[in-house]
């Protein structure tokens, strides 16, 4: 088992958001969760990663979980692409050189890899972000809505890398896109009436979700909100 939820319940603003969620995810298996806007997809992902504590129930994690794909929270605009890659590698106990070499080659940023992130346009940024997301090995890749992306030239390559990772590790992702479900999920679930309902096949989950196909994958993800930099500068006693 790589991830286990046991009777997990979470309320938000006094109303139940997710109720009595239980499942057990074996290694190498990809679980895709469909959910409408505001149904609790991000809360579910946050609970998976331990960023949010459930009100009741237990969550078990065995093995390494990735950061949310496409949203590496540690990116810093004052650093170059290379420095960001090195930083991320160190935070996961990896050899910075290996990770940098991989990201440099895969993202095809060229000389921009050694420029600060603040000088990147959205297209360059998304190349770095996705290359970095999949450069870090994980037992389970976690994604909230975005599994691959980038500009037209990069997108196919990124999808191929995501599929390669899909063969090497488990995935746990939420989405509104039936297309991503078909591409990545082994097991389909839908958030319905605050519950996580699993279906025998992915096709049935998509049918039960019953929403028109819409491409939920944003082309160009934004940088995470800026770190509170002032906090690093000023003592606060």
């Amino acid at each position, binding site marked *: 088992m790589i991830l286990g939820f046991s009777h997990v319940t979470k309320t938000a603003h006094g109303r139940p958001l997710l109720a009595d969620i239980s499942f057990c995810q074996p290694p190498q298996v990809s679980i895709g969760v469909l959910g409408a806007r505001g149904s609790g997809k991000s809360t579910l992902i946050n609970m998976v990663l331990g960023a949010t504590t459930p009100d009741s129930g237990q969550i078990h994690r065995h093995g390494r979980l990735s950061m949310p794909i496409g949203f590496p929270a*540690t990116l810093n605009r004052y650093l170059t692409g290379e*420095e960001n890659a090195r*930083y991320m590698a*160190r935070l996961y106990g990896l*050899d910075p050189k290996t990770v940098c070499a991989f990201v440099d*080659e895969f993202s095809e940023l060229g000389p921009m890899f050694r420029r600060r992130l603040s000088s990147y346009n959205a297209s360059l940024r998304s190349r770095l972000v996705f290359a970095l997301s999949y450069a870090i090995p994980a*037992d389970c890749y976690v994604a909230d809505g975005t599994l691959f992306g980038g500009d037209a030239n990069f997108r196919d390559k990124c999808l191929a890398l995501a599929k390669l990772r899909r063969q090497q590790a488990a995935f746990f992702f939420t989405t509104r896109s039936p297309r991503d479900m078909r591409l990545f999920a082994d097991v389909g679930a839908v958030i319905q009436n605050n519950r996580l309902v699993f279906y025998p096949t992915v096709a049935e989950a998509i049918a039960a979700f019953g929403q028109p196909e819409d491409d939920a994958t944003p082309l160009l993800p934004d940088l995470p909100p800026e*770190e509170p930099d002032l906090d690093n*500068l000023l003592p*606060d006693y």
Partner: protein
Amino acid sequence: MAPLTAKSSISAGSSGLRLRSSIILGLMLHDIKVRFRISAMGYFLVLAEPVAQFFVMFLIFHAIQRQPDFGISLGVFLATGIVPFFLFMHLSSRIISAIRSGRAFNKVQTVSFLDLAVARAVLEFLTLVIFGVAVFALLAFFGEPAIPQNLLDVINAVLIMAITAFGFGLINGVLTKLFKVYALIYSLFSRGMLFFSGVFYVVANLPPLARHYLSYNPLLHGIEWFRLGFFETYPAIDLDRGYLAAWAIGTVTLGIVMIKACESRLKE
């Protein structure tokens, strides 16, 4: 292109000391790089506070023509109080802010709050040691007797004060995160400590009752110990090294227990 495999070294190094040191090194290098790039001056500006404190006290002492409570040099006497005091205050407050801004890492599974605190502590400690050496070197350069008589006492005092500051930082970091008002109380309290820590007076010269109450303050012991390293004959009669060491062990232990116990609440 040789793709990284999902099964490479990550699981092997996942829980060991190697991962911890890799994370702490990463955080430190990141911290120093970003701070320098935002503003190199800002990095050093925090050190303006003890320097300003020093000059204000120096001028006041000078204006009222008061002699230093001990020794022949007012500059060295004040510096031996302000430097260790600032070490403690700055270190503990920077750890507090590391814990307070630690939420940014709540989706990075490998990084714990203790990693953030240790990385910040090591970086600030190194900065402060360089600062301290520079202060006394500068005083010595101007002909003041600023060379420690017993370097081992100075090093021990600094280390044990730094450890206590680390423990204080952990405890107060957790408390400020859980109770908003606490931050204000602590900041008032810590500033007030300047008057109760023997920074600009010799404790042995005070009335017995005052000495008795002040001797509960661990900071005072650290400063006395530090001074003893500079002046061989310093009357550190109230100095209790064991008492300070007990504070160091106690605060660090409690701090680690608290930060581990509250890890998931801190992440929210």
